[in-house]
């Protein structure tokens, strides 16, 4: 029984647009999984479901043993808050809050806003000295690291990253991917949506989606390392 379980999940929009078509999936704790596929393959839909932002039309989605299929919006929010740390392609930092405050926002909605802890989280991503800067004063890579610090702050079961390197140049991409590697080594479960095969290969397991269906899962790449 894994951390995330999808059993025969379908998501149908409107009359007959099947974004996801009868998908079953199991992700274990500590695993790094990348989800790949062309546009329209259902990546985002899957992300929405696992990120507790939507519920499936059919089937069961379980996160840390909780079946979210029947939950209402409020309960979904609670699961998301407790179990999931989100990292976005566009970083999505609140523009008028400093780096440390942006981390504290996540703490605030979760439980308590502790500035000390937020600073420690920033130190972990190597940004201890940038805590009082506004997002616009940070580089793209730094912003993404703030975003990762924010995702980590509440000790989530799963880090859900949506094209985390999509908006970064090579150098920053490497820094961020290194950080993900580190997190994986520390035992975090990571699920990353990407269309970049090189980034995808870093994961232990790649899930390929096409027209809402799973394509035959490729081998788990044993050799992990930085692609430079």
């Amino acid at each position, binding site marked *: 029984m894994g951390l995330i379980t999808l059993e025969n999940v379908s998501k149908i929009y409107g009359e007959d647009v099947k974004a996801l078509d009868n998908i079953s999936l199991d992700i274990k704790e500590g695993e790094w999984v990348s989800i790949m596929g062309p*546009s*329209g*393959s259902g*990546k*985002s839909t899957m*992300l*929405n479901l696992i*990120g507790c*932002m*939507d519920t499936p039309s059919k089937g069961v989605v379980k996160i840390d043993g909780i079946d979210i299929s029947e939950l209402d*919006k*409020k309960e979904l*929010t*609670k699961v*998301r*808050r*407790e179990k999931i740390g*989100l990292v*976005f*392609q*566009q970083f*999505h930092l*609140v*523009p*008028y*809050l400093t780096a440390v*405050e942006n981390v*504290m*926002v*996540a*703490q*605030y*909605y*979760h439980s*308590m*806003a*502790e500035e000390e802890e937020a600073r420690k989280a920033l130190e972990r991503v190597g940004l201890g000295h940038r805590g009082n800067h506004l997002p616009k004063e940070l580089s793209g890579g730094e912003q993404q690291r703030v975003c990762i610090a*924010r995702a980590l702050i*509440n000790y989530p079961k799963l880090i859900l990253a*949506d*094209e985390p390197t*999509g908006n970064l140049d090579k150098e920053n991409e490497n820094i961020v991917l290194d950080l993900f590697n580190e997190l994986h080594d520390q035992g975090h479960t990571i699920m990353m949506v990407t269309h970049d095969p090189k980034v995808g290969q870093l994961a232990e397991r790649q899930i390929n989606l096409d027209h809402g269906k799973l394509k035959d899962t490729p081998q788990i790449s044993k050799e992990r390392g930085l692609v430079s």
Partner: protein
Amino acid sequence: MKKLQMFLRMVGKAFKERKSRVAIAFFAIVVGVGIIASLFSVYYDISIKMSEELRVYGANLVLAPDLQAANKEMNIEQLDKIVNKFDKDKLVGYRPNLYGVAKAKAKGILDVKKPVVLVGTWFDQVDQVNPYWKVEGELLANKSVDDEVVIGKEAAKKLGYDVGDTITISVEETGKEEKLIISGIITTGNEADSQIFVNLSLAQELLGKPDKINIAYFSVLGQNLSSKVKKINKTVNGIELETIKKIASSEGKVLNKIKSLMYLVVMIILLSTLLCVSTTMMTIVTERKEEIGLKKALGAENSNIITEFLTEAAILGGIGGLVGYGLGFLGAQAIGQSVFDSYISFRIMIVPASFILAVLVSCIASIIPVRMVVDIDPAVVLKGE
């Protein structure tokens, strides 16, 4: 505590960030509340102000001897008694009249004497009791002038006199005669146009009726005059105070119309303030859609975000309300000055009222925007396919 701190920090920074947008919302609230506050101030004062204005119609009470009195005359002391029964600040003015028939020499033609109505009165009260008199020349300066006269326009025309001329007045019954200088000619459009006016004391002497008057006119502020009049009438003998219904009852009608008009107008302005604040709050929500989506994705519940928004709205409303009140007070004074030529009185009640109103208005106005918040999908932060 720390949670509250963070909350305040977020709200505070959100204000700082969106200075221009917040400024517009603030402006909207200030303008709205300002208008409402000024109209409320005016509304509360409008009865008093308008009833002061309506005093341009002149006297609304008349004091006359009752039917039993001989010659329809009363003593001047009786007038004083009545005057003392009114509050000083409610009594705009009062003017006693003594009437008699006299003869006036027509100008130029020798020994042609025409009968005229001679009226003794107090000229210093004319401005208050008969503000509509049009005076050419001047009224008599004080109550002791005894060699001047004011004549009606018709009388002047038919007797052939002008301001500055000397007119001879005689009373047959007493055989007295006086040469008087015409200091002013009045136009009124009523019977006063054909009468001639002298100081009360002189008229009393000429007519041989010391201390007597026939009638007195009062211009009095306030509602429920008729019950006040009834009360006063119970305390006096031989004289009777009466409301001049033509003026008093019309005044009530007109005042009521104006009050209910103002009431509806205040309601309309309240609605347009709501519209204004509400659309501004909608703009703020629209602008911050992504931020709201993000917060939701990070685990904020609708209630968290709504609290943040309502707090922002309430703070905006509260401060806007106070500033708006200040402005509104000034606005009310502007209205008071330009419309009524007087200040609108300060009412402490309106301060908390406009504060609460402003907070309420901005919160009510936020209902639609808040519903927009609920509809925002946290997934907006994810990259769409």
